[in-house]
């Protein structure tokens, strides 16, 4: 009897405790609470949230930020949106167009907040009719970080074309240095390598053009017949042992350690890894993804997560105010300041470019930043294509399938997910 009573008491006690805990936080703060979530860590987005909160104080609105792990984010957000829930301010990257297509976002075309951003910055958040549903938090790009000491040791110059890149890798290998560190088990490094090559050797300088992607998005072109030759060429990276089957079994964070420990000479990444590399005390720089034209190089990049107002928000007015605060000059400046190398699509906000970016800064100034999957996003959930591409490339690199198989896989996937 005593055990039974204890169990019942415990059950009621803990249930009511749990209930209290939830009630308590609901009442916390007399003002309006606006929620926002993304996969960005505090050191990326924290200061801009603080800046927005400072601006919102007079309206008695608090912005509450939640970080969700990146590989859970898509599912996490989709689940909520599908049941008419979700954060008041929706943040998403490659899937932002999918959220627009699903009608999850409020049309903000007529809001003044939109006027501060460049057209490229709004591209991901604009539908086919020209209506705008969000603003970009900042701009990202990726290139190739390289270890200057190791390059010198192996007598290697910074490559400006794909052939030079292969040469450089061979020389590094001859000097017993791992040319490239890449953890392909849980990252999209192979995608950046491939898409960076395609942007340079196919879309901008080769036989293709960015329109191929638009046609592909609308089902008027297939990748088969377009991508085959350039992909075959890119796969020389595998033949030359730059990308290896072993990399498929390496977690991302360990591959970064290979670069920061000075074991590998190159690492494909962007501003998000700058601080970790800097902290390791390396003498490093960054060069662009390479293709076949040294004088027309392109970085991979575009708008990072865009932000918009959830149509199902319970406080649409407060959410709109919060979006304005997040898209204010102060908050926009805060986010690029927190991420050395990030740039802004907000007119007049300049990012800080440390000396390590001297080779790529001119490309940014020219606007040579683009990425294929943003062009696909107009008519298909690009994140799904990225997931398929990640897995397909793992299979290619580990020798399970050919590049032509991969192309067919992508075409098939696209056929089943176009809007």
């Amino acid at each position, binding site marked *: 009897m005593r055990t039974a009573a204890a169990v019942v008491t415990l059950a009621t006690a803990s249930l009511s405790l749990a209930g209290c805990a939830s009630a308590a936080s609901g009442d916390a703060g007399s003002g309006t609470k606006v929620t926002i979530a993304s996969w960005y860590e505090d050191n990326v987005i924290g200061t801009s949230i603080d800046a927005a909160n400072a601006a919102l104080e007079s309206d008695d609105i608090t912005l509450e930020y939640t970080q969700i792990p990146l590989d859970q984010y898509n599912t996490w957000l989709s689940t909520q949106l599908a049941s008419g829930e979700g954060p008041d301010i929706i943040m998403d990257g490659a899937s932002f167009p999918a959220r627009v297509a699903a009608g999850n976002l409020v049309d903000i075309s007529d809001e003044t907040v939109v006027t501060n951003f460049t057209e490229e910055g709004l591209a991901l958040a604009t539908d086919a009719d020209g209506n705008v549903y969000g603003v970009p938090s900042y701009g990202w790009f990726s290139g190739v970080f390289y270890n200057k000491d190791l390059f010198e040791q192996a007598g290697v110059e910074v490559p400006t074309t794909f052939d030079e890149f292969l040469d450089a890798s061979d020389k590094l290998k001859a000097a017993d240095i791992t040319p490239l560190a890449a953890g*392909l088990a849980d990252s999209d490094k192979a995608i950046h390598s491939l898409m960076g090559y395609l942007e340079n050797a196919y879309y901008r300088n080769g036989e293709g053009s960015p329109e191929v992607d638009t046609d592909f998005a609308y089902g008027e072109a297939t990748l088969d017949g377009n991508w085959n030759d350039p992909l075959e060429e890119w796969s020389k990276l595998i033949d030359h042992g730059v990308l290896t089957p072993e990399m498929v079994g390496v977690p991302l964070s360990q591959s970064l350690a290979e670069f920061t420990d000075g074991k590998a000479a190159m690492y494909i990444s962007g501003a998000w890894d700058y601080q970790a590399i800097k902290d390791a005390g390396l003498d490093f720089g960054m060069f662009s993804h390479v293709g076949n034209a040294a004088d027309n190089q392109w970085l991979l990049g575009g708008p990072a997560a865009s932000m918009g107002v959830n149509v199902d928000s319970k406080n649409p007015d407060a959410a709109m105010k919060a979006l304005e605060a997040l898209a204010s000059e102060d908050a926009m400046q805060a986010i690029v300041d927190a991420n050395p190398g990030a740039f802004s699509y907000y007119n007049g906000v300049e990012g800080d470019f440390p000396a390590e970016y001297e080779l790529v800064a001119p490309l940014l100034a020219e606007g040579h930043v683009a990425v294929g999957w943003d062009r696909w996003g107009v008519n298909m959930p690009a994140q799904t294509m990225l997931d398929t591409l990640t897995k397909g490339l793992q299979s290619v690199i580990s020798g399970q399938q050919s590049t032509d198989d991969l192309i067919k896989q992508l075409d098939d996937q696209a056929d089943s997910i176009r809007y």
Partner: protein
Amino acid sequence: MPHAPAEQLRPPPPTTAPSPRSGPSLAAGKKRRPGAARAQVRRNLPYVLMVLPALIIFGIFFIIPVIRTALLSLTDQSNHSRETSFIGLENYAEALTNPQIVAGIQHSLIYAIAVVVLQNLLALPVALLLHSKIPFRGAFRTIFFGPAVLSVLVVGYLWSYVFSSNDYGLLNTVLRGVGLANVNWLGDPNLALGSIIATQVWQWFGYQMVIYLAALQTINPDLYEAAALDGAGRWKSFCSVTLPGLIPAFQITVVTGLISGLKVFDIVISMTNGGPGYATETVLTLMYRKFSEGNYGLAASFGILFLLVSLLIGSLLLRVFRRLETRFS
């Protein structure tokens, strides 16, 4: 099985001896029914009230979502369209013809069977040894069971560092230390599933061992004595006494092992995320992937198919448990 005690205690109904329900006695039966029924309700009500809370919670948080999933599986609901239409069994047709799913089912089956077989191959002999008079039995038992209290998620991350194929991987460092070559544990499509299986054998064989130990303790020592009196040697008494005594435990480890093996999810997500390529995708990771791609209808149809298959296995499970019950009572 005896009648319920309440019925036995109840004074016999003032009727004549039970007769075949036909003709005149039917009318007589009808007359008495209301009172008897009310009494029966009153007698059963406390029992109903005791089951109800469980059924309500289970119904709300399990049955309703499953029904919702079943309905969802007949639609094309997705994350990129606000309009949803009824498409009948189209999702099922796609699920059953998708080559990735076929491979996923294979991986789940291989995983479930391999884990069950390997765990048992390890757990059974270890349990027999620990049941004998060997030193440090308690310490061994504590150590072997230990990994079972760890979170699968953390175990997955830990092992992905142990298995890592670059210079930092523990296992490869050891292999290099003894002069062997690096092995691409998680990056080789032919090895990746095996590596995952190894971690789960590591984590759970101690758990199965505890179940075998418990079964060994339920074996009546007199049975060994009787076997010895019959002139049975060690091997013979093992076969005639120990093994039969272990059958209930064996059934439990096999059936629950198979069911939870088919449901494998966390460890795959945390170690390979289904890769390299699709080499370690299981039914549930694929379902999760379709869901995360926003194909809710399709993902739901996987879920329902999985439920149907599981129910088949489940009815087997139920029969096993029923048999166990009669064995014990």
